[in-house]
């Protein structure tokens, strides 16, 4: 009886009568394939993509890092095993150590600056009037939206030796002030992008400019979730702004900060596009970071894919250590 009525109402897939009669009448179960199969059917395409395009290449990369892969191997000649040669070669290379130093220092400085500036701006946004904060948000969104390559282009122009606005702005400073801060007063023609140190200053400015908006907006979203009674109570108890920030805002936003820190570290550890534009391709070996070093080894002639892969393995391991240490700490303190 019940079955006929269900079918009569037009359940397109015509389930076998004897099977559905075993079900209770009003159970919320759809007709069609048995339920347990469906999720697997659904994840198979995604799983194949992840396996084929991410996991398998990861394994390949590790294998290649123990092989010699040059032009002939790219054309199809089977690769020779060279054991740990690629790694010893990399570790013996000065460029590796300067790349490692550049990568780590850049990440530390940039992550710190981005988080500090982003948090400050997020807190500021929370205190501004609606109209004012809308204006600031439009501004920072525009900065955030600029594609990395265009970011590099813009800052390369701003740091240009002759017509760049950075040099123009520095020349505006009173001579005595500029002299006191930098030991010089004339900035005309200062070529920022030639020397590794000043190149990295430009890169840091560029990346901080492009990535603090994300932190600011995330912190703002977190702040909006904190009940205002807490701040009222703190104010009544005579707590100052800094103390309130340290004792209320910071602990409550800790989970947000954890995620933001991890994401920033991951992003900044492997910065590529902006550096590529600012130094005009892999030209200045002393200014390489690990991504650029791996890229240059593997794709500049003569291609040394094995060494490139070894550098990429080291970069990946470093990234995993950073995130693993961090995740373990989070699990320990149960922040997440």
């Amino acid at each position, binding site marked *: 009886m019940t079955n006929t009525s269900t079918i009569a109402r037009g*359940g*397109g*897939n015509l389930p076998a009568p004897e099977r559905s009669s075993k079900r209770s009448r009003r159970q*919320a179960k*759809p*007709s069609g394939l048995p339920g347990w199969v469906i*999720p*697997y059917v*659904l994840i198979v*395409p995604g799983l194949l993509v*992840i396996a*084929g*395009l*991410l996991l398998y290449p*990861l394994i390949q*990369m590790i294998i290649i890092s123990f092989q010699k*892969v040059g032009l002939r191997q790219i054309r199809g000649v089977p690769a020779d095993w060279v054991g740990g040669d690629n790694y010893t070669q990399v570790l013996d290379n000065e460029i590796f150590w300067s790349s490692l130093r550049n990568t780590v220092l850049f990440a530390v400085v940039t992550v710190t600056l981005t988080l500090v500036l982003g948090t400050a701006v997020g807190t*500021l*946004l929370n*205190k*501004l009037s609606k109209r004012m*904060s809308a204006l*600031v948000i439009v*501004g*920072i*969104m*525009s900065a955030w*939206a600029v*594609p*990395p*390559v*265009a970011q590099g*282009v*813009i*800052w390369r*122009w*701003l740091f240009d030796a*002759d*017509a760049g606005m950075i040099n*123009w702005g520095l020349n505006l400073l009173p001579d005595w002030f500029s002299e006191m801060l930098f030991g010089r007063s004339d900035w005309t023609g200062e070529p920022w992008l030639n020397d590794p140190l000043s190149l990295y200053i430009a890169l840091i400015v560029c990346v901080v*400019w492009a990535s603090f908006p994300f932190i600011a*907006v995330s912190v703002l*979203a977190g702040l909006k979730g904190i009940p205002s009674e807490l701040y009222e109570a703190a104010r009544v108890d*005579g707590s100052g702004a800094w103390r309130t920030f340290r004792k209320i805002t910071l602990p409550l936003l800790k*989970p947000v900060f*954890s*995620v933001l820190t991890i*994401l920033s570290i*991951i992003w900044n*550890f492997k910065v590529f*596009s902006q550096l*590529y*534009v600012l130094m*005009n391709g892999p030209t200045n070996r002393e200014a390489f970071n690990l991504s650029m070093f791996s*890229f240059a080894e*593997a794709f500049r002639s003569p291609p040394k894919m094995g060494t490139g892969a070894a550098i*990429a393995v080291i*970069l*990946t391991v470093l990234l995993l250590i950073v995130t693993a240490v961090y995740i373990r700490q989070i699990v320990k303190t149960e922040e*997440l």
Partner: protein
Amino acid sequence: MTTSLAPRTAARRQPSPSGMSPLARKRLSRAALNTAGVLVFLFAIFPVYWMVSTAFKTNDQIFTTDFIPIPRELTFEHVERILTEGVAGNSIWVYMRNSAIVALGTVLIGAVFALLAATAIARFRFRGRTSFLILLLIVQMIPAEALLIPLFLNVKRLGLYDSLLGLIVINVGLTLPFGVWMLRTFVAAVPKSLEEAAWIDGASRFTTFWKVLFPLVAPGLVATSIFSFITAWNELVFALILMSDSSGYTMPVALQFFFGQRGVDWGAIMAGSTMMTIPVVVFFLLVQRRMVTGLVAGAVKG
């Protein structure tokens, strides 16, 4: 805003040591906050403005050591030049089109896969679900740079070198894990009772999915798709190594060719950068709020 401030200031027990009245102090701090806001706004917007304005300045206004905040006369010569003469032998349209093909292709394929997987995670409890979630998190940590060499070799082997399809496939791989991660929260937000009601009425799984779940998840799907679009649109390094013929370059690669030869044509490169940036800015303003929730929420709720 101002009315709510009154009781707070009243709660202050003593006048400030500087001798200012509480109201004056409040005004002063408001002015300070607004000044800070304006400074942040200028710092954020100036480089973008500088890019756009340089694109429309005449060369004598570009190559000067003077600061010319507002172009004295506007010119479209740079835009015209990159459209007709172009760079690396093609009009900039060719590169815009390539970028659009790659980004849209990535979105279309990626959206289907992501929606299926996200539905599985959010709607079913199955053996291996947790492992799949952890896998999604882990693969997001893999730096794309680490996959460069093996993917380059695989693409060559498969005969997809110098083809936009190869780039699309790789971008699907790069964007999918995050897409699934972000989309699953949107699927989970649709109340299950709606689907159950449809089942009781005898609807098949497919009908339920298509007629009930899909329309409700569509906004989330759009947000996720825009994120994938931007990622694929901005992608430099794979396009750099997988495209040797200039007619297949995407915008990020093509922009590199403005540098190099004798002197840099800054007007042209700024016009090109502006063209590349506009779609992203539009999309960004559309999905800004959802993107932050997607990035942070998943991890925070754990």
